[in-house]
């Protein structure tokens, strides 16, 4: 790790980052909350990729998930409810050198920020988007979210959620120009790490829906899935995610799925009985808006001044 290469040659690096270099404030999530594991995975991926903390920006909205930037030792932007994606896109628009992460939740992304979710996916700027989906509003204390399962009682629907939950995967798979969609559960460390690592390495918007446990308000959601792994289906492929046998043993259902096949991805996403885990869809060639929005970045002041005078000439006599 320390610069030692496969051929035993030693690469001396000016800076080497350890996990600690990415750790910000002490997380204040509840005990047993799935967010802790996701944060650990993010720290690890940053460390493995040796991201410079000063060149890394974690953007979030509002909610339990959106506290994540405070627990990073990078730059961070803890903004408004639902608005993480437009801000993150703006950060990336003229700063291709920055590594931008987005932490959002099911309320933040799928409800108040739904418009931005749809459009940010289509922009396909180089962002790593992690949706912490616990199926409940946690920070405001147990209100129904778009993904709260039917009949789960909440403070806004005490006799249970009235409508079937939204399926964020099928919605996302319906958006033009998407380039990376994955789903994981927070409680499998290896799969979690592998998928987030792939998501980060992907050039374009990577959308990772993380089914995440909230033991305080809706323990049943995570517990059911944890107790009945047969309700999940692990998707592996050489182009997608590859895990070792220990992971495969934990998820008895698995299938080979080529993530370039969007039709197959949609079929897996639609199955309510076996929630897919792994990378559903991957297209490294989708047009990237961040490459377009950065146009002209390299221009010098002299060139800009000449351009400005040319613009004025259009109105001159």
């Amino acid at each position, binding site marked *: 790790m320390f610069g030692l290469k496969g051929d035993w040659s030693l690469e001396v690096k000016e800076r080497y980052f350890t996990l600690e270099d990415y750790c*910000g*404030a002490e997380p204040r999530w509840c005990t047993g909350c799935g967010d802790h594991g996701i944060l650990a995975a993010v720290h690890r991926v940053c460390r493995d990729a040796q991201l*410079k*903390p*000063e*060149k890394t*920006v*974690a*953007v979030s909205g509002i909610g339990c998930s959106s506290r994540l*930037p*405070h627990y*990073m*030792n*990078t*730059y*961070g*932007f*803890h*903004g*408004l409810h639902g*608005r993480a*994606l*437009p*801000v993150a*896109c*703006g*950060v*990336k*628009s*003229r*700063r291709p*050198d*920055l590594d931008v992460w987005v932490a959002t939740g099911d309320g933040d992304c799928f409800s108040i920020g739904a*418009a*931005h979710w*749809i*459009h940010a996916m289509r922009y396909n700027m180089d962002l790593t988007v992690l949706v912490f989906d616990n199926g409940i509003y946690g920070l405001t204390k147990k209100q129904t979210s778009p993904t709260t399962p039917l009949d789960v009682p909440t403070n806004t629907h005490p006799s249970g959620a009235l409508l079937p939950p939204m399926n964020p995967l099928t919605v996302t798979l319906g958006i033009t120009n998407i380039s990376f969609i994955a789903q994981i559960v927070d409680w499998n460390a290896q799969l979690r790490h592998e998928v987030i690592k792939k998501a980060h390495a992907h050039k374009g918007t990577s959308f990772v829906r993380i089914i995440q446990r909230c033991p305080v308000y809706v323990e049943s959601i995570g517990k059911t899935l944890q107790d009945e792994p047969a309700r999940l289906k692990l998707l592996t492929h050489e182009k997608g995610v590859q895990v070792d046998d220990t992971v495969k043993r934990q998820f008895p259902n698995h299938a080979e799925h080529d993530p370039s096949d969007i039709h197959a991805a949609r079929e897996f996403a639609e199955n309510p009985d076996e929630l897919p885990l792994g990378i559903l869809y991957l297209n490294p060639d989708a047009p990237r808006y961040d490459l*377009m*929005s*950065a*146009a*002209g*970045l*390299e*221009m010098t*002041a*002299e*060139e*800009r*001044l000449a*351009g*400005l*005078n*040319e*613009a*004025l000439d*259009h*109105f*001159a*006599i």
Partner: protein
Amino acid sequence: MSDSHVEGDTRYLFKRDKTWWVKVAVPRTLRDELGYDLRRSLHTHDLEAARATRWEVIEEFRSEIEKVKALRGGETDEGKQSPGNRESRNGKSQAGPIAVDQHIVEIVSDSGEGAQKCGQLMGLVSGKMGNGVWTVEIIPAEIQPPARSQQGASGIRVRMGSKYMTNMGNEADMVVAFNEQVLYSRIQNGAYREGTVVLLENMWAEDPEPAVREQYAEALADFKQRGLVVHELPIQQECLKIVSDPRKGKNMFVLGMLCHIYDRDTTMAKEEIAKIFRKKSDTVIKINHDLLYAGYAFARDNIDYQFSITTAPEDRLDSVVVINGNQAAGLGVMAAGIEMVAMYPITPATSASHYLAEDFHLTGGFVHQAEDEIAAIGFAIGSSYAGKTACTITSGPGIALKTEMIGLAVMAEIPLVIIDVQRGGPATGLPTKIEQGDLLAALFGAPGDAPKVVLAASTISECFHFVVMARKLAESFRTPVLILTDANLATGVQAIERPDVTDEWFAPPIDQSPWDRNVPPYDWDEKTGLSERPIPGMRGGEYILTGLAHNRNSKIAYDTRSNQEGMDMRSRKLAALAATLKAPEVHGDPEGDLLIVGWGSTIGAIEEAVDLARAAGKNVSSVHLRFLSPLEPGLKEIFSRFRKIKTIELNYSDAPDAPLSGIENRRYAQLAYALRAHTLMDIDCWSKVPGHPLSPATIGRVIDETLEQMEGAE
């Protein structure tokens, strides 16, 4: 422009020391001999008596003016007599153009017939020929309102003059109408006077529909009744010689006519037409050129009067650009070194982004059309946070949607330039029409205390320069800066001095040098509230920006002390900025009876009205505010030198005599509201929401009435 709000007829009358006088203005070219106006006391305090006896005096003055005019053997300006009867007056035609100081021409049509394009080109050519120009677009809210409808009028007013033009002026001298019905909405707006020449498309007289023929005949009689001088012209018939569908193309024919009537340079018009249609085929350009020349020839052969508006060399600007306010704002964005504009389509702001989409690449910029208003400002904030101060351009409803984000930019001290091209509100309101209704929303829109810088551009030139200033202020004071412009500035075309641009106006390259870890991200200076900000990429400056209450370290802090300190520091920045500002200049004497206070695009009309009133011996001055937050200093001191202070605004206020309102619970116009709170002075207001700019004549009447009331109250 409407007379309707004036109680009683006081035309040609004014009051001095309770006695009524008659006054008749003298045409500009005769002023060396007769003075500015002719006036005589009627020796009565009674308005009714004055009304009765004035006509004799007026007639006498008029004949005196005519006599001098005749002696000089030429025609004069002001369009006081109609060009239509010129031939009969001096018995000859082709006498060469009549020199005028200024002329106002309108072109009105159904939507989609290109009247605006025609007027814009007229303004452009006039500006390029050295004239002062001001244009106002007349825009229906619908894209395709029904044809020949009174409310569907689409068009443009072009005021051309020898001097620099600052406003739309009073009644038009000439109007070209593509049908007779569209004239009615303009007549309702008081756009014309007795003697205004109407060049009217006459095809409707022969329309296959009897109802249309009837409408046309009725309108014609009505126009004559109203004193309009109507010339029916076979415009359609002439255009049909060149194009099969004159709905497209008639405008260029009319431009050709106007080029002859106003002695405009057709080569210049030809070039501008080629520029407009450069993306179309050469055939299209040729057809439009043919129409232009056909119109020119038609006017030459059929219209026997011609005007020239010359500009003295000393009045010519050295170097001119002819632009509207939205183009000016777009150029300002480029001149400020801003590289990112994030917007969502909204009238009347969008044309600024249209312009930028065309030229922004010349300075390396990018227009992001976001999915909604909130995303637009969010995107801009993201770019700003990352070190590239961005701009978002919108109108009132967009400001409403962006409010929470503006609050975030204030709270987290993110530099940002926001341009609000105001239109009529609330809700969807009057999308295409002018109002100054967003001031209080700009000042106080966000929940909690959200101090920010608010500027109001009053001229097209300021639409440019204020963006440059705003970017600088935003970064120096680490705050959003809101620039208010309006629908009148947005579409008004003016010839302005070409800005002498420099790369010093550009934002410096992003600072990526290491940040001293011992300096917190909000290292507030106790005296000014100012602090430097770390920018992503600066090693050692890593911090988590938050919209929550926070301390100097940007750590979430809900405690009393931190919250109070953050609020204090953000407010102190405005005080620090105010301390650097100068008191506004008073237009006119620094003391007197009445001080008119305005803001925004009304400046030209207010100052023209004040100048006229002062020339008539009235003790009135005006002051125009550019900084609304913080307010410019010294206002109380300036106000204290006048007997009465009155704001004139294009937003709503209760009339002082409105039922149930009364003086105690009267709702004041927005600037008056702010100034009353700021100065604790009894500042009055006159405001209306007519959906069009104020004319100098309207403001002149307000001045007269106010002074009369002041005298009456003594």
